Structures are given as C-alpha cells and as structure tokens.
C-alpha cells in the first residue's frame, strides 16, 4: 500500500472542518431535534434497590391518567423480544431493556411509561406502584469473587463472567532469572465518558411497509443488526438514519436496550415513540459507566532497571450485566507491554458481575486503565533502584530500529520512534528548567512533582478481542466502506455509513477523496445513507476511522480514477500506461495537448455508451469495502493475535503543584508529544488530543461513579459527577512528530484516544513525585482533593513536619 503520494495537496493542511458550519449556527441535527409527527414520549420507572425481586406492578393509577398511553413491564417485553446480544458466551446472564422479575442494580429500568409529553410520562411514572422484595447484593469486585457472595445471576452459578490466564513467553524462567521483583496494586475508579448529550432515540413503525425507522444518537457497531435480532425483525425492516449528529459519545452511545424498548413500543402502539434519557436515567441506568478495575502487577527486572517479565492480574467490576464491556479486558492484550520491550507476560483477565450499573465501552476500550497500571509500575521500578524515572523508561522503550516489533501477546507494532518523541518534548519544555521550577516550588513550601507518561494508542480497530475471549465468536472481518458517485452534471458525492460524534468524518472523506482525485475537497459532497442503503461499517470505535474510512475513501477514489483513465485511454486511443490522470482530466503523456476534461469523461460515462470501453459499466459509481489491514486471523491456541494494525505514541510531561495544607493539585505546565503518523487534518487531531487530555484529567482527579454501602449511586447528577470545566483544563502545548504507518494509505494512524490514555498516568506520576518527599504514594484514581489532603496530613504528622506553616 505504498502507492500513496509522499507530498499532499490537502491531507495534513490546516483546513477547516466542514461539519462545523452547521454546529455554530445551531443547525446540527441531533436525535432530540428530529420532529417526527405524532411522537409520544417515554419515561422510566427504575428500581430503588441494588437487588430486588419484583413482586408486583400496579399500573392502574398511571393508566387512568389522561394522556397516558401505555405502561410496559419487563415480562411483556421479554415475551416479545430476544435478550440483548452479549459479548461473551454467557447465556445465563441475559440482559433486557426492562428488568424481568429481578432487578440487579439501583436505577435499573423496570417499567416504561408512554404519554403525550415527557412531563406527563414522568407524572405517570410516579404513580406506577411496584412492590419489591429486597435481595442480598454485592458491590465490590473482590467480594463478588468470594464463595459466599450473593450471586447477581443465580443461573450463571457464579459472579465470574470471564477468568482467563494467558502466558506469553517464558514468564516463570524470566522471573526466576531476574535479580529483582516488585509488586504493586493499583485501582482505576469507576468513571466514564459522560457526553453532554444523553442517549436519545426516536422510532416509528410503519405496519404497511413493515419498516422500523430509527433516529438515534449512536456509536455502536452492528446496531441495526442487533436491534433487529432482539426485535425478531429481519434487519431489512430496520432503517437506521445515520444522518443524525451525535452529541458526544467516546464509546458509550450504545443504545441497544433503548432502541429495542422504543422499537417494541412503536410496533405495539402504532405511533412513533421517543426516549430521551434524562441525566438521572442516564447516569443510573443508561449506557453510562466505564471500567472499574483493580490491578495486581508483578515485574521482574535487572539491576539496570530493564524489565524482563510482567505478571498482571486485572479484575474488572462490570456491573450487573455482561454486554460488551468484558471485552475491555481484551483490547489491552494488543499493547499489553505498552511501548516497552518486556519479553514475557502473564495476563489474567477477570470480569465479575456486581450490583452496580452496567459498564459500557469507554474511550480506548480498557486500554487507559491498563496503561495507568503499566506506567505506575515502571515508576516503582525506577524508585526501587534510585534510578531517574525518565531513564528507566528510556532503557525499556522499543527502539526505532526494532520496528516492526512483535510483542509477546502476538501484535506487531507497525512503526514508531519513541525516543525521538520524548527528546522533542524534553527540548520543547526545557526539561532542566522544569525540574528547577519543581525544586523552586518545593523550596517555597509546596509539594511539586513532574509527571511523565508514555502511552500507545492501538488504532484501526479490529475485533480480535472477540474471538480471543469468546471461542464461539469467529469474527475476523471488520469493515468500513465508501461509495463515490459522480452524477451526470459532474458533481461528486461520497458516502459514509455510520453516525459520527464530532470526529469530523465528513471532512476526512472529503479530504481523502479530494486528495486522491486532485480536486478541491469542497467539491466533494459527503452524505450518510441510511442503514438499508449503506455499505458495511463498524462505526467509529477503536480509533479506526482515519485508517478505515480514510482507507476506504482512498481506495474508492482510486477505482474512480482508474475508471476515468480507462475511458480516456479508450477514447484517446492511447495505451493505459500513457493515459495520465491530473486534477480531474486525463491526457496523453506523450502529447499532453490531447486531453479529456472532467465533463468530457463524465459525459462519456453517463451518456455516450458508444464511447465506453467494451464491457465497462456505464455511469460513474464506485465503491470500496475495506478490511482492517493486518487483521483477518483467529487467535492462536495460546492466545496470541494481532490486535489492531497501527500504534500511535504519545509522551506526556507535566508539572503539578499541590498546596500541602489543602491537598489541592494544580497543573502548572502540560506538554505532550504526539505521533499519530501522517495527520490528515491538524485541527481535528489537535482537538482530539486536547479533548482526550481533558477527559483524562477528569478521570484522574474529579470523576467517579461512587456508591455508598447500600448500593446507591452517589454521583448521579452533574453536581456530584464532576466534569472538568475550562478552569480545570490547563493550556497544553503539543509537540508533533510523524512516523508514518506502513499499513495505511497516507501513513496515518488513529488519534482519538491517546490524550485519555496518557493523562491519568501522567497526573498520577506527577502527584506521586510530589508526594515522594513525604514517603507516601497514591495508587487509586481518581485522586480527590480530600483524600489527598488527608493522606498528606497523616504523612506530615508521621514525619513530624509542622503543619499550618504559611
């Protein structure tokens, strides 16, 4: 695939993002903006207890209210639909939109009320009387593993959904032969992506055409198929409209349960039905929560700090049902050693159910917690040897000349130059001065620390974690597609086949098609046909669109060029090799004045069949369905597999100061070095990096779906779940480096996740550096002010440092 041009006209140039024009005037078309005539509204009645048997549901009072149309319970819905698809082979952990007989977390949806307005539906929801019998519950992942733990799903026989141990390489030997060992336990708290738009879906059933039209704020692979399957409809009866703008997702906008619910209701009731989660429904029972993970990491290393082997146990609390979330323990297999040359790894991945809200996919699909764990342990290795933390990393990093680099778990990293990225960042930041600044702060009585973190962003999204963790799943295909049509007037329309949540995919397609056709991208219209007119797509997950949609658009445009060249070669009567494409026209290389322009070629294709080369299809429509580069193989018996094709790299360097009296951390400087190969649109990559960092700051310092001992979610509004505001996100200096990927057409790699992958680790690193003089460290995220303040106070008391010094 090295046929791509080396220098670009439009790729990598700082062009505007075409989607932005509609958003700045308030003309985005979000799911809640879509006015379907006759729409009725859903509100939900949720279970107040972490575990309860539903003893009785009295709908009478609700149904008696004028304007209330229906009250749906779980039994009725279950009788008419199939359980939602689960990732693992766990048939006895069925998940349904509404609880059937037993509710398994506080906030689980039990009953849906349909009324003329949402307000009325909420009034009626209050009048549905549900009697419960409370059941024992379990909240903590380690408690859930105990033999006497209450079972979240009795039919499953245990709370363990997944417990797999992989051994890649000579772990026993490497541990035995290494002079030094170290163990660390770290915890990643339950947080998530929490888009500002909650999930919204409107569905309308047309019984005469047997068609379910769906408008939803989704980011979900195979959404139409899964919806149709659960509703027992042929997928050709489900038409998902992809021209809906999604108000942020970063993984969580899955929405299958919502869609099955409203799909059933519109079929049952004969009018369109909409569910817009309110923030309470969203945070308690929507697709809202992310990984909550406990890591036990052991490493074996030598006296110089070179790590030879790692054992990692990751215990994830996935909440009450399975869904896709256990796969988030699988994706990190693709970069299980991070950017380091660790030659053998034992990885034990355990997913347990608990009586908490279900976990969904979150930005980087489980990699961010794992990266945090890896980065914490490498710092402890450095500390144990009295080695500089940067030097410890340098000694372990894969070197430029070692690419392509095969890691023990079976992925080959495509390309990279990690040392150079780090050097560039250090030079940009003036590392010596930064260290001096930290020391100056310390001398002034502050706690201050420098944070370092590397991270790898696997991109291009294949689904190898599916067959890896579920042997019944044999999926190795993971497509994306583009169709380009040139109409008889010469106008160009390209397609994409999924919704987007702000990643600028229309700009991506326009840029790539423009680049390849050598035409102004502004001339390329980009549209999103509905799911019944669509080519395959697997949605913007796994940092895959630059690679996959960009790739599909490139190949489709190449096919179009080839077709134009073939027409011209035929009409000019010159051999193919002499017909040369430039900027929409084709000329004879040996006689450049002999040329057919864009409209000439379009006219031949559309109107002059007599001039077409024999056997050529008329018209100018081409499409390309692209398979993930390097994907396509099932895992080996010992669980090695190529997970994702491309690997971006980032290095985060920060300075933090903590007021020792208040424990309040403050980011004083943030520099990040970024290498995602060839950048297609700098504005987009810049924004993704910044947004990811802000999200990482949230996960590190502010955000947590905390529960009390009674199983009640404490953070269920924006007053208690704290998203960083403009005050909390510091200016970030971005240093770019480009190591093209050999697997992609322009050398591009993914870029949507790396800010989020590195920021939590970097912040933890800075805080631990700041705490070092006190002899303490913190190994739990988020690091909240009060917790940090109490730790610091205890440590200062222990070492007899006076408090209250100003």
């Amino acid at each position, binding site marked *: 695939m090295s046929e791509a041009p080396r220098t670009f006209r439009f790729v990598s140039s700082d062009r505007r993002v075409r989607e932005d024009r509609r958003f700045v005037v308030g003309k985005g078309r979000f799911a809640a903006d879509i006015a379907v005539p006759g729409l009725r509204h859903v509100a939900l009645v949720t279970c107040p207890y972490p575990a309860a048997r539903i003893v009785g549901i009295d709908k009478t009072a609700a149904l008696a209210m004028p304007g209330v149309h229906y009250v749906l319970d779980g039994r009725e819905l279950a009788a008419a639909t199939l359980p939602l698809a689960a990732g693992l082979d766990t048939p006895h952990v069925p998940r349904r939109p509404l609880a059937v007989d037993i509710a398994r977390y506080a906030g689980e949806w039990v009953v849906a009320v349909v009324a003329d307005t949402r307000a009325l539906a909420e009034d009626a929801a*209050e009048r549905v009387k549900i009697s419960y019998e409370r059941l024992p519950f379990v909240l903590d992942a380690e408690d859930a593993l105990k033999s006497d733990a209450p079972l979240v799903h009795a039919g499953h026989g245990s709370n363990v959904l997944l417990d797999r141990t992989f051994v890649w390489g000579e772990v026993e030997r490497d541990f035995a032969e290494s002079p030094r060992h170290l163990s660390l336990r770290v915890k990643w708290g339950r947080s998530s992506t929490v888009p500002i738009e909650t999930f919204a879906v409107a569905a309308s059933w047309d019984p005469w055409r047997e068609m379910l039209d769906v408008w939803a704020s989704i980011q979900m692979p195979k959404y139409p198929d899964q919806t149709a399957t659960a509703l027992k409809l042929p997928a050709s009866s489900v038409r998902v409209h992809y021209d809906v703008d999604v108000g942020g997702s970063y993984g969580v906008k899955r929405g299958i349960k919502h869609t099955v619910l409203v799909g059933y209701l519109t079929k049952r009731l004969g009018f369109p039905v909409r569910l817009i989660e309110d923030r309470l429904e969203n945070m308690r029972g929507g697709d809202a929560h992310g990984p909550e993970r406990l890591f036990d990491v052991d490493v074996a290393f030598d006296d110089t700090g070179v790590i030879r082997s790692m054992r990692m146990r990751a215990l994830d609390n996935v909440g009450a049902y399975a869904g896709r979330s256990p796969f988030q323990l699988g994706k990190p297999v693709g970069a299980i050693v991070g950017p380091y040359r660790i030659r053998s790894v034992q990885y034990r991945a355990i997913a347990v159910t608990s009586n908490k809200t279900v976990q969904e996919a979150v930005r980087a699909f489980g990699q961010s917690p794992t990266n945090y764990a890896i980065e914490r342990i490498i710092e402890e290795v450095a500390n144990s040897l009295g080695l500089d933390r940067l030097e410890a990393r340098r000694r372990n990093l894969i070197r430029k000349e070692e690419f392509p680099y095969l890691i023990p778990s079976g992925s080959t990293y495509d390309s990279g130059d990690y040392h150079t990225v780090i050097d560039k960042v250090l030079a940009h930041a003036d590392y010596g001065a930064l260290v001096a600044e930290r020391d100056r702060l310390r001398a002034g009585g502050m706690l201050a620390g420098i944070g370092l973190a590397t991270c790898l962003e696997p991109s291009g999204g294949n689904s190898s974690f599916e067959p890896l963790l579920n042997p019944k799943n044999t999926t190795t295909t993971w497509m994306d597609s583009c169709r380009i049509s040139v109409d008889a007037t010469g106008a160009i329309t390209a397609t994409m086949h999924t919704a987007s949540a702000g990643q600028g995919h229309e700009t991506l397609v326009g840029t790539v098609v423009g680049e390849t056709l050598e035409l102004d991208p502004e001339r390329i219209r980009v549209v999103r046909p509905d799911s019944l007119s669509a080519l395959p797509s697997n949605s913007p997950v796994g940092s895959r669109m630059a690679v996959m949609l960009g790739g599909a658009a490139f190949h489709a445009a190449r096919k179009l060029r080839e077709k134009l060249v073939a027409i011209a070669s035929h009409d000019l009567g010159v051999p193919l090799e002499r017909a040369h494409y430039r900027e929409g026209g084709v000329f004879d290389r040996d006689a450049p004045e002999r040329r057919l322009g864009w409209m000439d070629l379009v006219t031949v294709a559309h109107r002059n069949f007599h001039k077409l080369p024999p056997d050529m299809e008329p018209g100018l429509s081409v499409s390309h369905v692209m398979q993930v580069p390097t994907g396509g193989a099932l895992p080996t018996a010992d669980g090695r597999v190529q997970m994702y094709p491309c690997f971006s790299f980032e290095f985060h360097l920060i300075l933090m100061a903590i007021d020792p009296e208040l424990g309040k951390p403050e980011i004083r400087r943030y520099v990040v070095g970024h290498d995602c190969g060839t950048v297609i649109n700098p504005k987009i990559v810049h924004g993704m990096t910044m947004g990811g960092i802000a999200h990482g700051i949230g996960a590190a310092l502010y955000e947590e779906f*905390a529960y009390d001992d009674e199983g009640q979610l404490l953070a269920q509004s924006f007053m208690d779940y*704290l998203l*960083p505001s403009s005050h909390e996100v510091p200016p970030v200096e971005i240093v770019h480096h480009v190591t093209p990927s050999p697997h992609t057409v322009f050398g591009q790699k993914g870029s949507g996740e790396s800010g989020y992958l590195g920021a939590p680790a970097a912040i933890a690193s800075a805080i631990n550096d700041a705490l070092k003089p006190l002899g303490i460290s913190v190994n739990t995220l988020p690091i909240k002010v009060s917790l940090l*303040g109490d730790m610091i106070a205890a440590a200062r008391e222990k070492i007899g440092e006076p408090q209250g010094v100003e």
Partner: protein
Amino acid sequence: MKAAPFEYSRPADIDEACALLGGDEGARIIAGGQTLVPMMAMRLSRPTRLIDVSRISALSYIREEDGHLAIGAATRQCVVENDPIVATRMPLLAAVMPWIGHAATRARGTVGGSLANADPAAELALVAVTLDATLTYREAGRNGDIPASEFFIGPTITALPMAACLMEVRFPIWRDGHIGVGFHEVSARRSDFAFVSAAAQVTVDEDGICRRIAIGVGAVTDVPIRLERVEQELSGNRPDAARLRPAIEGALADVDVTADLHASAPYRRRVAATLALRAITDALASAKQRGPDAC
C-alpha cells in the same frame, strides 16, 4: 427531569406575595430559580404554586443607610458583584461574589434566594453570619427582623416563618480604622460549592493593633459559624501568628463537622483552620494596605 405541575403567580408587590404565600401551604417563592428549579426538576421539591418575586422592583436595590448597606432580597447576584457601593463599603461581600456559581447563575440568582436557601456552603450566608447582618422579612402585613446568627438553623432550614417573604439583608458598615478582608474557599472544581470556606474582616489602628475582627467559616457544619474565641483573642491585640493557629484549632475542636462524598470530616476541620488562618492573614495584610480613607 421535568418538574411536577404547579400554578404560577407573579404578584405585583410584597403584600400580594405574602397573601398568596399565606393562602397556600404548598406555595413557594421563586426568585432566581437557580436552586429551586433544579430541585423541582429532580422532583425533590414539588411546590403547588410558585410565587415569582423576581420582578418586584421594591425588592431590588442596593443602598447605604444608617451605617448599613441594605440589599433588597430580589437583587440579582450579578448586580451586587458589579456594584461600586458594594466594592467600597462592603469589600468582603465584593470578594465572595465571583465565587458563587458562574456568571450565568449569577445573572439570575438573587441575594435573598441564596440566604433563604441556607446552603451551609453558600458564600452569602457566610458573609451574613460573619458580618452580623440582619435579615428583614414580611409576613401578613408586618415586618420582622432576624439576626443572621439566628437565621440559619440547619442545611436549607432557616428561622424564616413559613408564610414570610424575605425583603432585605442589612450589613453593618465598619468605620473604625483600616478595614481589611480575606476570603478563601476550597472546592473540587473552581466554581463548585465549597467544601470549606472562611471569611475574615478586620480593622487595625495606626499602631497595627487589631481593633475589631470577625471570622466566619462555612461548609464545615450545618450552618456557617463564627470563630468567636479567636475573635476575642485577637481583638485589641497585635496579631501573633504563632498563637493564631492553635487558637483557631481550639475554636474548631468542638464543631460537629460534616462528611460527604466530596470531603471527609477531618479534612474539613483541618482545612477550615488553614483557610481561617489565611483569611485572617489576608485581612490583616489588606487592612494595612488600604488605609483609613477606604471606609
């Protein structure tokens, strides 16, 4: 998240508001709505009638009278924030205003709404307690006064009679010597309700002797409190940094401190001492800078 149904009235004056309030047990006053509406949206509050006082012009003013600064209950927080009289006469009030939520909440939120809501972390409640403000209400055609020290009873509980409308809050203006103020708060995000806050106002004379001091701490317990023992210790004396912290800690020792999702009780107690100390230190420093003509 839609409010339960209610009736809406917009009385022309205070007496009509009071009459409506007296006539309906489930009625509630709405002023800026910045606290009440979220509570209603979550259906944690379900008034049968809202009585909108936000446009009663007689409740919206800032004026200096009889050695006091009087602020009408329905005065928007943004007006106080930008008011020149407040800036010169009531610098402590001016200092806390930017800490109340965001510009957009201050554009609607009122002084009286914040006081009547009595959030333990509300900056305005802290200033009212610290500066011995007096709150005036109207009920059934009569006015009544309540000193701030008696007004706040617990989280969102006040001494305001059920059918009363808060009319005014009056802050005494200090005129004795060089005035200085200090204010600090800690919250997770900059604009959140504080976990702990502290406000201090002092006057010092030409010799650096502390003539008068008021020090209040918010968010650590059910209502804002004064550190009276510290005030007694300091007034009439030259401040001694070494003795100050133990005195503050002593004053906080018996306080029944709140613990919640965001901050532990030990944190609040410890940081209250720190912030009180900082507020006093800042107040003393700014008093020395300002000079007497400032008030």
